[in-house]
């Protein structure tokens, strides 16, 4: 007995390591914060000599490229090509007075076509969704704006897909190219939307074609990623079978690899379409007409009814485009029985042609089916306004009180506290976190991300962004994770929750601003609420996925060991789901960063606000510096959380392996 006690004591003794480096760093951070008053000013705020004029350098570089190298001629030419395409789709969809001057196609024809497309891809449910969306748009008098938006997507998405496919193939073919491309993609995917807009404005100006160009650029990265993934995933035996069939390199690529990677590539197409929609709505900030512009106007005028209506339209379009393209990606080829006639093989095409002609004829006879005139459109704006006002009358005492309480008691003190911290403390904390999770390498990586932010001179703004994101993600976690745990309790509930999360994630981020502006007006709390809701979605989703993705044997073993539900959750499910949860946190932070920047136009004081200013002044240097600052914050968090997740995962595996 006493021997085993001794052993126990010895093992405990072994476990108490000397102080770890990260603990020392944390202590340093603490000392720096406590001793702030004694610190030289250079350690409290980034000193003047440290701040480098990155923006001037970037501006000079852009000037050089734009004017001296004459790149502007090239970009203008590209933009003109895109404008020509926009004219065509614009003419077809909303009757813009340009070649080929045959539009606009009657809405009833579009209705028939989209319904048939939905039916062909996913049966009656998708047909109803697609048809219902078009019907809503037409009848509610939102046709023109929606078509302005869709005409851009119709041009941007194919260009983007093509660019992504070619780049993806190149990256797959040449390892060196991929190595260069990868970090660029990482940065590109963590850059906020606005950071893309400013250079485009510099090179192309404002208006629809600039909007289209920025949309294209913004939506290419996921296509590259998925093309690469798809090509990598082609089973080696399929490639070998191709080689043994005597295929040349080109044949292998075009007839073996790309067709076999079809699903991933089409999921890439789906991503491109969704990114396009998100961007095209935001491109209203650089003069893109359409739904986004209307929404912006209505929100700025605080006209909640019409804003709500447009919101519904955008959401419907988003869900329809997402479901249609996803159904296309998941579609598997099915054979026809031998002897099936041509008409039967092309049944759906024939029905579509018949219905389209019928709808077109109808539109010629009854103008209502061609274009719904302004006076004929229904509108829910009035009733929505009334309901919203009634609702607000009831809740506004609460929301008002909540808002005041949050601002005065929580947000402002917290923000001031973060701003009060010497920047050296923040650096030390970041280094400590890096060291604790991934050793000195991670510490250096994190510092490499955050030190440049200090050097831009936008430290305080960045800290306000950090504070907003931190608060929002914390609150989101406080209700998102319990929600996820609850939802994971039953398989059917989990499925439905995932569906809701999926759907919410397809909404363009702009949409989230409508309800919060409605409830909280234009204030810090509204921004926070929007960011919070947006950030909660991935958290719920990954909690559910983590908890339901556990191997059943694990849970059964737990049950047979007599674990109660709570014990099973605490000791089996949550620890096993933890790596997945970290991925959720990672996405949550990314989403929050994006949202914070978008929310700038309803009044924030962070990096986003400055970016808006840079946008209106078309100050590329400033805009890109701010964009990089946001991207670096995101990448730093990404690095930390992924390192942590890897560690827990390999730890789990090691433990399982040992067992």
């Amino acid at each position: 007995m006493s021997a085993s006690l001794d052993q126990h004591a010895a093992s405990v003794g072994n476990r108490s390591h000397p102080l770890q480096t990260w603990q020392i760093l944390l202590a340093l951070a603490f000392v720096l914060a406590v001793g702030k008053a004694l610190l030289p000013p250079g350690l409290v705020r980034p000193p003047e000599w440290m701040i480098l004029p990155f923006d001037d350098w970037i501006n000079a570089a852009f000037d050089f490229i734009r004017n001296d190298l004459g790149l502007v001629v090239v970009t203008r030419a590209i933009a003109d090509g895109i404008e020509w395409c926009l004219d065509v789709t614009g003419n077809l969809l909303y009757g813009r007075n340009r070649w080929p001057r045959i539009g606009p196609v009657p809405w009833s024809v579009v209705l028939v076509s989209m319904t048939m497309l939905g039916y062909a891809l996913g049966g009656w449910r998708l047909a109803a969704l697609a048809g219902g969306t078009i019907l809503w748009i037409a009848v509610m008098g939102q046709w023109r704006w929606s078509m302005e938006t869709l005409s851009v997507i119709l041009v941007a998405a194919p260009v983007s897909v093509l660019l992504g496919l070619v780049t993806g193939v190149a990256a797959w073919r040449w390892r060196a190219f991929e190595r260069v491309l990868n970090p660029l993609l990482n940065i590109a995917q963590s850059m906020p939307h606005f950071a893309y807009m400013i250079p485009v404005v510099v090179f192309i100006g404002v208006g629809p074609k600039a909007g289209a160009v920025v949309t294209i650029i913004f939506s290419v990265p996921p296509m590259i990623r998925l093309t690469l993934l798809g090509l990598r995933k082609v089973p080696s035996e399929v490639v070998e079978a191709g080689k043994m069939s005597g295929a040349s390199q080109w044949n292998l690529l075009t007839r073996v690899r790309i067709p076999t990677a079809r699903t991933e590539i089409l999921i890439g197409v789906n991503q491109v379409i969704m990114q396009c929609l998100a961007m095209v709505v935001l491109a209203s900030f650089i003069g893109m007409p359409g739904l986004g512009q209307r929404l912006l106007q209505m929100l700025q005028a605080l006209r909640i009814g019409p804003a709500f209506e447009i919101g519904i339209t955008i959401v419907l379009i988003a869900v329809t485009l997402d479901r249609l393209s996803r159904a296309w990606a998941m579609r598997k080829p099915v054979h026809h029985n031998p002897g099936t006639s041509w008409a039967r093989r092309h049944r759906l095409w024939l029905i579509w042609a018949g219905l389209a002609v019928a709808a077109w004829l109808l539109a010629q006879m009854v103008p209502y089916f061609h274009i719904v005139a302004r006076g004929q459109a229904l509108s829910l704006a009035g009733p929505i306004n009334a309901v919203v006002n009634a609702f607000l009358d009831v809740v506004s005492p609460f929301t008002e009180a909540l808002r005041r309480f949050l601002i005065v008691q929580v947000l402002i003190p917290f923000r001031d506290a973060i701003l009060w911290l010497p920047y050296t403390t923040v650096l030390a904390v970041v280094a400590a976190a890096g060291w604790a999770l991934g050793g000195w390498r991670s510490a250096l990586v994190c510092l490499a991300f955050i030190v440049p932010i200090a050097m831009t001179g936008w430290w305080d703004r960045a800290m306000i962004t950090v504070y907003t994101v931190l608060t929002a993600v914390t609150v989101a976690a406080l209700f998102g994770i319990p929600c996820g745990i609850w939802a994971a309790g039953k398989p059917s509930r989990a499925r439905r929750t995932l569906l809701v999360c999926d759907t919410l994630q397809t909404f363009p981020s702009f949409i989230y601003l409508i309800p919060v502006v409605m409830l909280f007006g234009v204030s810090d709390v509204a921004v926070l609420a929007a960011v919070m809701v947006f950030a909660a979605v991935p958290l719920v989703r990954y909690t559910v996925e983590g908890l339901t993705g556990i191997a059943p044997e694990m849970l059964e073993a737990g049950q047979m060991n007599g674990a109660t539900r709570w014990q099973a959750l605490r000791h089996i499910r949550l620890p096993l789901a933890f790596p997945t949860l970290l991925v959720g946190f990672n996405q949550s932070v990314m989403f929050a960063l994006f949202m914070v920047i978008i929310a700038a136009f309803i009044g924030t004081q962070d990096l986003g606000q400055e970016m808006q200013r840079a946008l209106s002044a078309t100050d590329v240097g400033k805009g890109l510096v701010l964009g990089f600052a946001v991207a670096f914050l995101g990448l730093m968090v990404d690095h930390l959380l992924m390192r942590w997740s890897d560690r827990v995962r390999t730890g789990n595996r090691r433990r399982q392996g040992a067992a």
Partner: protein
Amino acid sequence: MADPVIRCRNVWKAFGPDPAGHVRAVEGGAPLNADGHVVAVRDVSLEVRRGEMLVVMGLSGSGKSTLVRCLSRLIDVTGGQITIEGQDIGALSERDLIALRRRKMGMVFQSFGLLPNRTVLENVAFPLEMRGQERGARIARARAMLELVGLAEREDYYPRELSGGQQQRVGIARSLAIEPEIWFLDEPFSALDPLIRKEMQDEFLRLKALSERAIVFITHDFDEALRLADRIAIMKDGAIEQCDTADRIVLDPATEYVARFTAGVDRARVVHAGALIQPLNGVAVEGPPVASGDTIRVLARRLIEDERGLIPVADASGRVVGALQRKAALDLLVGEAP
């Protein structure tokens, strides 16, 4: 005898940062797998003749799949030389290699390797398409191949609509579409369940009999190897332990490892009368002979009822080639070591 179609001399294949250097080190006595290197094929020499089927047998990780990929030059060897009809395939340019595959080689894969976006017919026609054959001709040829494997009804199906056995029939039809002289099969039946596997083996024997090819067949299933092979090469850790006929492997295993494999085998089903004969040396044997191609199991009743000590054995043409010692054959039949 004709020249071998495939000849492979001292072939090595190693993976890792410096394969060639590693192979030199291993030849000098260094351990097999070190410094992140793995030796998959170790000093393999073998020959396959026209009309002959060599089965390469080994457990997973023994290097058999790597070996067959070296033979078809899906991967390049690290050392040694492989010649096909006297031509060193390691020295072929990309263009010549493609031409060689288009004219002479067919290969069947464990997980079929079918193109998911093409129908069964288009899959079978794919090698012909690559060869630039005109559409009508290649469709006709592909149809004939599907007829041959009994899938004519399914030509418009997509691979995912077929069962595993049917998919492998498509794989076989595709590999035979160009009438290859060399046929590689990489564990073709391993992904199938046992009943289908038996059926496919019979089917395979039927197809094999249709035309004279050099065949290299990979399997991890010893019974399958015994059932199908003319000669068997048993691999372990990348090297060939023994390469011989089934009878010889069972009767005279070259190494401890091969002996362990053959321990559980019912020898009477494997060993042929011809493998047990002793020369006549002028001794006169009376009575009707047994066929040298029959297994001892097939001859069981004859062996028990026949009372002669020495039974004459005749080859396929009826000529007596030697005599079988009845006692030795009976020992084998009842499972006692000779």
